[in-house]
Structure formats: structure tokens, C-alpha cells
């Protein structure tokens, strides 16, 4: 600002003076500029911290809960004066936490596979058909109804089929339940794969299924991973159907297991927090492993 003011005052030679002075003591000049820059940077960091804090606070609170005694939890303090570790081993002792997490991982992974396996060809068929748009809206409309509407019919259906309290039943329910979401996600990815590639393959003599398999599918891989991961997380977090259809310990998943920490007269918040944090870990690890796969850009260079 000072420099600009001096340069603009119109007196001949003044601008040169400023330049000379600036060259003689570069630090002084940089300090003049650095002032507002540092303030700006500080402000942006403050913004990031506030923004991040807003999202991380619940996790931090959850972690702090795991080190509190039951009494301390009831006092509602954020930090604990005497951290205890007993929640960590008691949670795993109280219920078969590791086993339930394992059940959830198996059910969520396989149902995500089922979702993607069904949604991919379905999306391809609908999105590439000339009059298929209404099918898309139809798919979405099925997702608008609250899931609880399907609870009882599904319960009786599954009982008839002997699928209650079974992995296959839960995989089927979760896998099919997430189909509309997967369809809409994949549709977005599919629209990014140019239709001209399909046409080029047809002209080259490839049949419609072969074109899907050899041309479209490899280019959809990032989309398949993203859709699979989201379906997996949705299935992993699912509670409503799991609470009714998987009550047996042999198939019970984490979300239902967490509710077991709630007794008749009190809630064991500390151990519940341990179970919640332990439950986050597998999903986080899966996301971490596949994050490179989620990056798109595979179609670069194909057209134009």
C-alpha cells in the first residue's frame, strides 16, 4: 500500500527512489507486504480449524468417553481428570464385539458386491436406452418411501423363505435396498463415459454385451469402487432391518450390538463409545485401501 501511494503521488523520481530503497533493504519491503499476508493466512487457518473442529468434535468426544468412568460420563465433562482404560477391554469382554464387527464387515461387503453386480448392468441398460429415463425416476421413487414401510412385509417374506437370522438374508436385504442409490451414483459415472466409445465398438463388430464388458466396464472402475464403497457404508450402518432380521448372535452386526450396551436402567456409554470407535476402524481402513481406485480420469484421451 505504501509503495503504491508513493508511486502514485506524481512527483518525478519518487518511484525510482522507492525502488532503490526497496533494493537496499529488501527485508523492510517484504515486511511491509508480509504483514497482511500473515494475517490472511492466520485467518484461513483459523477457519480451517473451526470447520474441522465442528466435524471432529463428536469423534473427539467419543474418544474421551472411552477413557471416562461411568460417573464421569454422567457429570458431562469433556476432559477426564483420571483416564481409565477398563472400558476398552470390558467392551470386548461384555459382548463378542470383534465377532459382531466381523459379521457387519461380511454382510456389508457382500451386499455391496451384490448391489454393484446388479446395479451396473441395470444402469447401463437404462442409461443407454433411448426411452429409459422413466425407469430411473421409478427407481428413485422407490427410495423415497421410508424404509420402515417395508419392514413388516419383508419380515414375513423372509420368514417364509427361511432367511431370518441368516447371512444370506441380510446380504440380500441390504444389497437390494441400496440398489436405487447405486443406480443413481453409477448413472452419473456412466454418463461420463462417452457413448461414442460404445458405438465405435459396435461398428468394430463387438456385440452389445461384449461392448459393455470390454469397453464400458473397465472405464467404470472408479465409479464401481465409489458406488461399492458407499453401498458398503450404507449397509454397514444399517440398523432398522438388522435389528429385526438379525437378532441371533451368529449373524448380529455391529449396529445392533451397540444397542446391547443399553441396559434396562442405565446406558454403558464408555463401552458403547469403544464399540463405536472400533466399528469405525474397518470402514476407514477399507476406504483408505481403495482411495486410489476412486480417482477417476481413466477416460482421458479417449475422445478429443
Amino acid at each position, binding site marked *: 500500500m505504501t509503495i503504491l501511494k508513493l508511486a502514485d503521488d506524481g512527483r518525478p523520481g519518487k518511484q525510482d527512489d522507492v525502488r532503490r530503497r526497496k533494493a537496499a533493504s529488501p527485508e523492510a519491503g517484504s515486511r511491509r507486504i508480509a504483514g497482511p499476508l500473515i494475517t490472511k493466512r492466520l485467518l484461513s487457518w483459523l477457519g480451517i480449524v473451526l470447520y474441522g473442529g465442528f466435524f471432529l468434535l463428536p469423534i473427539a468426544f467419543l474418544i474421551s468417553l472411552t477413557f471416562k468412568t461411568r460417573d464421569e460420563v454422567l457429570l458431562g465433562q469433556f476432559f477426564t481428570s483420571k483416564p481409565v482404560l477398563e472400558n476398552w477391554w470390558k467392551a470386548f469382554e461384555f459382548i463378542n464385539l470383534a465377532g459382531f464387527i466381523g459379521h457387519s464387515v461380511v454382510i456389508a461387503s457382500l451386499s455391496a458386491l451384490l448391489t454393484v453386480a446388479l446395479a451396473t448392468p441395470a444402469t447401463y441398460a437404462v442409461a443407454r436406452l433411448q426411452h429409459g429415463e422413466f425407469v430411473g425416476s421409478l427407481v428413485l421413487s422407490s427410495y423415497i418411501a421410508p424404509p420402515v414401510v417395508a419392514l413388516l412385509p419383508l419380515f414375513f417374506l423372509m420368514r417364509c423363505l427361511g432367511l431370518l437370522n441368516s447371512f444370506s438374508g441380510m446380504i440380500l436385504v441390504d444389497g437390494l435396498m441400496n440398489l436405487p442409490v447405486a443406480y443413481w451414483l453409477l448413472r452419473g459415472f456412466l454418463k461420463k463415459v*462417452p457413448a461414442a466409445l460404445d458405438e*465405435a465398438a459396435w461398428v468394430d463388430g463387438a456385440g452389445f454385451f461384449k461392448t459393455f464388458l470390454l469397453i464400458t466396464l473397465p472405464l467404470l472402475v472408479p465409479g464401481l469402487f465409489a458406488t461399492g464403497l458407499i453401498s458398503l457404508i450404507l449397509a454397514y450402518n444399517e440398523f432398522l432391518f438388522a435389528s429385526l432380521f438379525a437378532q441371533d448372535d451368529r449373524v448380529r452386526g455391529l449396529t445392533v450390538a451397540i444397542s446391547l450396551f443399553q441396559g434396562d436402567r442405565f446406558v454403558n456409554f464408555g463401552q458403547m463409545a469403544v464399540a463405536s470407535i472400533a466399528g469405525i476402524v474397518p470402514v476407514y481402513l477399507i476406504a483408505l485401501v481403495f482411495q486410489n481406485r476412486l480417482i477417476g480420469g481413466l477416460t482421458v484421451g479417449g475422445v478429443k
Partner: protein
Amino acid sequence: MARIDITSLNKTFGEHRILNDVNLSIGEGEFMALVGPSGCGKSTLLRMIAGLEPASSGSVAFDGVAVDGKPPQARNIAMVFQSYALYPHMRVRDNLAFGLRQRKLPSAEIERRVLDAARALELLSFLDRYPRELSGGQRQRVAMGRAMVREPVAFLLDEPLSNLDAQLRASMRLEIRAQQERLRVTTVYVTHDQVEAVTLADRIAVMQAGRIMQIGTPLELYDRPMNRFVAGFIGSPAMNFINVRRRDDGVRASDGSLIRLPLGQANGEAELIVGLRPEHLSVCAHGAVDVPVIEGIVSRVEQLGAEVEIHVESCGTRLCLRHFGRDVPEKGARLRVSYEIARLHLFDHATGARIAEQDVAAAIEPSNVARDEAAASRVRVPQHEVDFTSTTPPA
């Protein structure tokens, strides 16, 4: 190689008529260009030949056998897309071989054909690269190669050069023509660039609003455009059009300028359009006598190096003329422009159709078109006729 016959082809999207009764015969080994402005239906026509779009009615036949209803896979045609449509996850080698593998050719034969095409298109050193690692020109050559290896009955090219810069486009144009002459495969080439069409094609079909306006060799279209649209589309810079009215005293433009016609006055047409190509207009030479002239004010001069485009406000429009030489008039100068009567085109004002020479009434005799005025339009000697003196343009 195949002969392609298109008969009464129509295409409608809802209420939109994309193609309107298209009839076209493309000979065996012929290079046919479909040219027209954006949205004229030329790409749709090409896609219908490929089998990528179903026809609403009409028929497409290869060598006399109708292929209507056959999917693209069953037509054995090769297509180069505007976007190239290279398979991004495959190397150049696999892109070239994909079509051959689908036809289950022996791998030795596939390898031979891929190498042949790569050699012809100078792609040998890029065979193991992915499309994303290639430049625009190289991608275009891969797209061409993918069509060439197939040895199809016809090449269909959909604006294959439109994504390249001008220099590369010119060299690829030569290459496409050279490859087509080498292989002699029936080729249908869609472009909106009339220069591409004229330089490449044996014959050109000019399209507008879903109709074919004229089919002919490049020179036929240039010399005898059948309507105002073709006349304006073929040739660069575009033909000048002057609206004229037949009056008792002759054929006059809106500003009163008299224009002489080649053979005679059209039968009873009150309003006509005169077409004059910029290359058939010239700055009236010193001492020129008995040549028809139009006078106007120079409004713009574009120096192109080898030639100059001079824009002249005259006859109620802006005329463009190509001038070869360095003696260029200044903007604002009054200029006398002479034109070649024999190369003047005449169109019906209402329909835009060419008024053919035989339809023109008896030769343009001064008795028919006011003898005196015709004579008056001729330059009468002045020795210092071409003067580029700057004058104030009329308000």
C-alpha cells in the same frame, strides 16, 4: 468396397424432421462428401448408413442389398468419429486390433494388418502408447488406422479433422485422400467445411435442413450451383448476392445500379438475385472500355499476403472481391468494380432456385433490357479510370 444406395430416407425425432426424403447413390470406391451447416442432418445421415440410428422410413442398401434393421456389427463398415472415440484403456496396438479380434481373425493376420496400417500412418513408434499419451494429430491417425485395418465395405468419416489446428488439418487432408486412393474404399465424409469437401471428394452432396440441395463434382457445384444456398456455401470467400428488380429500364439493384445479365432477362421474374463470386470481380483497370462495372465505396481491405479481399459497399449490399496485386485502394475510396458477365449466376428471389440459361428469355439484347442503360453501364474510356481517391462515404 460397396455401392451405397439411399432411397427416400426420412428421420424424425418427435415433431422434428431431421432428414427429409434423402436420395443418394454413392458409387463403388467413390469419395462422397456430405457437406452443410451444423444441424443440417449430415451426421444423422452418416449414422443411419452406419446403423447407429434407425430410419423413420426409407432404405439404405449396400451393393443392392437392403441393410435396414441390421445392427452396425452386421454392416462391416468402419467409422471415424469426430471425437475419435479411441478406447482409452487400450494401447494403440489394441485399439487397432480390437475390430479384427471381434471378427476372430488369426493373430498373425491381425499383427500383419496392424503393422501395415501403423506403417502407412507412421504410428509404428506409438503402438505401445495409450491414447492419452498421444497428440491430437496422432490420435486422429489412430482413429483412421482403426478404420483402415478392417478392410470394410465403406469408410464413414464424421468430421474427422474438426478437432485439429489449421496446419495439421491441411496435412491430414492430404493423408486421408492418399489413403483413400490407395485403398479405393467407398468413403462417405461428413464435414461442415466446404474447403475440405471440395479438396477431398469425388462428388459432394450439399445438405440443408435435412434435404440434399445438390449433388455433383466440386467443379459442378462451383460452376453451376442449382440454388442460392449451394452457391453461397461452396466457394471461399462466399459468393456475393445482389437483390435486383426487373424494371422497365433493366435489372437494377436497390441503390439503382444497373447490372448486365449474361443471356437475357428472366421470364417474367420481377425480383431476382444476382450471384457474383469474389474471384470474378476485379478492380476496373485503367483504360478499360466496354466492360460492365459497378461503383461503390471501399469499406474494408483485408490483406492476406498473396491476395487482398476488398469489401465494397455497392448495390445495396457489401460486395467482396479478391484482388491480386499490391495497388490496394484505401478505405473510403470510390472504386469501380468490373465483373465477368459469363460467370454471373442468377437465382429466383422467392425460391432461391437457379434460373437456368435455357430458361432465360432471348439473349440480353438492349431492346429487352433498356439499350441505353446497358450502354450507360459500360465504362467509357477515361484514361485515368481507376482512381483511389478517398471520398467521404455517403451517409
